[in-house]
């Protein structure tokens, strides 16, 4: 049971995806108002003949479950093979193929399917297709099975009904299924077992678009005439692979590209400077933090950890590493992961505000170090990752500040591959810059439940600080299983408070996700959130404007 619980959603790709692709607060965001106006441009309801999206990398496959980058594949293929539900950034569910979802007990979900839905090849959507798609997503060898915790079975329980069983009451089970599963036609998939997801066997879906002409330079989606739901505005969607950010900017200047998710948040100003371009932003669940191994000297000394926690100039680092557009984290989790279990944003925010303050104060840092067993300082090493530029800024800033405490920090460059290898082997001990972890559901169990406690120490585990206390051990099982909100909120606050008091992890910042819209286009919601991108809503929301 423990092995299935609460896996962190850090990934090498999310390392790049979150650090490079997630972005900062949008200032030029001209959010759509209730009057249908976006800035000076009036949002229209007219069809868009062709809309081009610049993608930073080629989609590694067309089947989300088998893709090496499920999030990237999902951002395109969720328009072809639809999810059962879409989960918004606010945690609200929008029904798609599932008309109704019930949860008779903590380990069971029952989906009632929409009637009259057909696949793009004319076949009816059946409960059999849905049960197969969920199993295909949630069971090995699907890569996505890593994120569907505790999955046991998915079976047809009625003509339009599918029942999903979990081996235990997994928190956020419904949200995980909604985010991870894209429904495809079982008959086609099983007939193409060996090459499903390649250009030779693109999954058949019920979505508003169909894949045309897939190639290494991009993918074209054509709108389906016989789509069961509300037709999106763009008749043709072109996903073009433009890896280089400068080239993407030039393409938007020339009008050849209409949308780009920014790969380098520090270039936000340049994007905003492009005539007619609007950059919208939304908070993300990405986590950047410092981890200190509480079992190894000198970090086994709480005063050393407290000293270091007061030596991190978070506002300065936000400005230098992310161009001034990231949100400082007060606790190890963002507010969005806490609101549901806390019973509201206000309660969650109030709790976060009450956590011990680790603001930048070298006076306090010196005082803490003086109380430690290492009052004269010590030497340590911090690694930064070449592919993640913000880690270099963080490392250098820390080196400079700790110099004043006579702590000699050796800054060492490494590659993402090497860093990941150490992560897997649980060799990232000492002082570690944590990045690429994402709170991808509205539940605190992930990744918090994987970053503390005895059961999460060791290879393939994510407790980088090797941190646990008796209070944490008691609270962890409550956090990691479904249950009453009050009890789980108490467990969450216990763990977060322990982390803050013991300074095992020092939360730093969370980048926002930035998306640039070219001249003449906006998102009807005024934003494109991490969830919107992953589930395809970002392209269902586009509208043409009248200048």
């Amino acid at each position, binding site marked *: 049971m423990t092995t299935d619980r609460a896996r962190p959603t850090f990934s090498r*790709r999310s390392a790049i995806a979150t650090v490079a692709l997630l972005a900062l607060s949008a200032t030029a965001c001209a959010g759509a108002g209730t009057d249908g106006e976006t800035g000076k441009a009036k949002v229209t309801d007219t069809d868009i003949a062709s809309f081009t999206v610049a993608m930073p990398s080629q989609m590694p496959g067309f089947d989300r479950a088998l893709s090496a980058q499920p999030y990237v594949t999902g951002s395109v293929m969720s328009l072809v093979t639809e999810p059962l539900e879409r989960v918004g950034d606010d945690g609200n569910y929008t029904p798609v193929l599932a008309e109704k979802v019930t949860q008779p007990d903590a380990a069971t979900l029952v989906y009632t399917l929409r009637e009259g839905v057909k696949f793009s090849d004319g076949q009816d959507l059946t409960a059999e297709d849905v049960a197969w798609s969920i199993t295909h997503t949630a069971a090995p060898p699907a890569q996505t*099975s890593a994120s569907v915790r505790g999955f046991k079975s998915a079976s047809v329980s009625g003509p339009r009904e599918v029942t999903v069983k979990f081996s235990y009451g997994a928190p956020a089970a419904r949200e995980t299924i909604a985010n991870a599963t894209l429904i495809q036609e079982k008959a086609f998939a099983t007939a193409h077992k060996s090459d499903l997801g390649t250009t030779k066997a693109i999954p058949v879906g019920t979505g508003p678009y169909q894949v045309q002409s897939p190639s290494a330079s991009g993918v074209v989606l054509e709108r389906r005439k016989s789509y069961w739901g509300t037709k999106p505005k763009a008749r043709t969607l072109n996903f073009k692979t433009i890896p280089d950010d400068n080239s993407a900017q*030039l393409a938007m200047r020339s009008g050849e590209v209409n949308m780009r998710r920014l790969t380098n948040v520090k270039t936000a100003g340049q994007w905003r400077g492009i005539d007619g371009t609007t950059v919208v932003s939304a908070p993300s669940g990405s986590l950047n933090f410092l981890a200190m191994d509480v079992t190894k000297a000198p970090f086994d000394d709480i005063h050393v950890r407290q000293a270091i926690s007061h030596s991190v100039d978070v506002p300065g680092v936000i400005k230098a590493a992310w161009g001034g557009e990231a949100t400082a984290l007060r606790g190890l989790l963002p507010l969005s992961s806490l609101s549901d279990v806390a019973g509201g944003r206000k309660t969650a925010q109030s709790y976060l505000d009450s956590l011990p303050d680790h603001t930048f104060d070298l006076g306090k840092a010196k005082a803490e170090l003086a109380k430690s067993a290492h009052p004269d300082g010590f030497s340590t090493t911090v690694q930064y990752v070449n592919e993640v530029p913000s880690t270099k800024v963080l490392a250098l800033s820390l080196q400079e500040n700790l110099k004043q405490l006579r702590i000699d920090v050796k800054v060492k460059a490494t590659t993402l591959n090497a860093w990941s290898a150490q992560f897997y082997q649980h060799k990232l001990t000492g002082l570690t810059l944590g990045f690429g972890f994402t709170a991808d559901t509205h539940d605190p169990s992930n990744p918090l439940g994987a970053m503390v406690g005895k059961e999460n120490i060791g290879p393939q585990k994510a407790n980088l600080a090797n941190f646990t206390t008796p209070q944490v051990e008691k609270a962890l099982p409550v956090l990691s299983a479904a249950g009453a909100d009050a009890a789980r909120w108490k467990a969450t606050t216990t763990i977060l408070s322990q982390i803050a008091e013991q300074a095992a992890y020092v939360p730093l910042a969370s980048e926002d996700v930035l998306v640039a819209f070219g001249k003449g286009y906006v998102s009807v919601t005024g934003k494109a959130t991490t969830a919107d991108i992953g589930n395809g809503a970002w392209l269902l929301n586009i509208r043409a404007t009248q200048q």
Partner: protein
Amino acid sequence: MIAVFVLKRIGAGVVLLLVLSFLVFSLLSLSPGTPLQALLGTRTASPELIDSLNVRYHLNDPFVVQYGRWLGDVVRLDLGSSISVQGGTAVGDILGERLALTAELALYALLLVLTVGLPLGMAAGIRRGRRLDRAVSLGATMAISAPAFVMAIVLLYIFGVALKWFPVYGTGTGFTERVSHLTLPAVTLATVLSAVLIRQTRAAMMNVMSQDYVAFARLRGLSPRRILVRYALRNASLPVITSLGLILVSLLSSTLFIEQVFSLPGIGTLLLQAVTNTDVPVVQGTVLILGAAVILINLAVDLLSLVVDPRVRLVAKEGA
């Protein structure tokens, strides 16, 4: 004799490819990170998932067994399937699509290099020290010193954004569109490499034009055209052909950066993706194809040298 020479070279090429593939396989094996990490990211996965992926990609097999399996497949003309770059797709299919684009780009750039570099280099060599020579040499120096990155962005901005003469990214479909899309990248590549050819050709021409047989031909009253074509150009062609071979090899290796800036899905970007993701079958397949291309280009250059220079033929005969 020539056939023996070619067979020997092909045999040596096969051995070289074998060594190259083994070295690359070893280096990938020694480098931190595994294909499994690239596939899963660093999400902590269940033991069942890890086992199933290890079995599917034979990742638990010893190094020698893995290499042997790959080599056995290659002998049967099967380069395997991509693990993470294009999961499940045959490496041969991926390479086929990517290689064609890179080859088109390289040939286009080579054409530009030849049409610009050769005449300018000859003219500069013949008019040594004169205004034309100085202008060409200055231009070549500037071209060879200009950072390709800056040049690519400047060209994109001027001709793609401001003038809108050429597209900013992508490959286009059909011959005309493809030529239009490849023009700016080919010009960027050709600018630097033309400078190399100009300097080589200029030096060769200068050397030849100062030879006694050229002075004697002039004294005999032969026409300048005949002197240039029959005497100077033929004698200067050997170093020029050699440098053309090097240029073609450079074109294949330089495409990585150019493909990245101009968003061209060629062999260079594929190799970068594959190495980053530790996609061993794709890296091995790409290296094998690039290695074979380099060997074949060098062989072609040597054969061309045999054709144009009888002295080389003689040496080859003795060697064979």
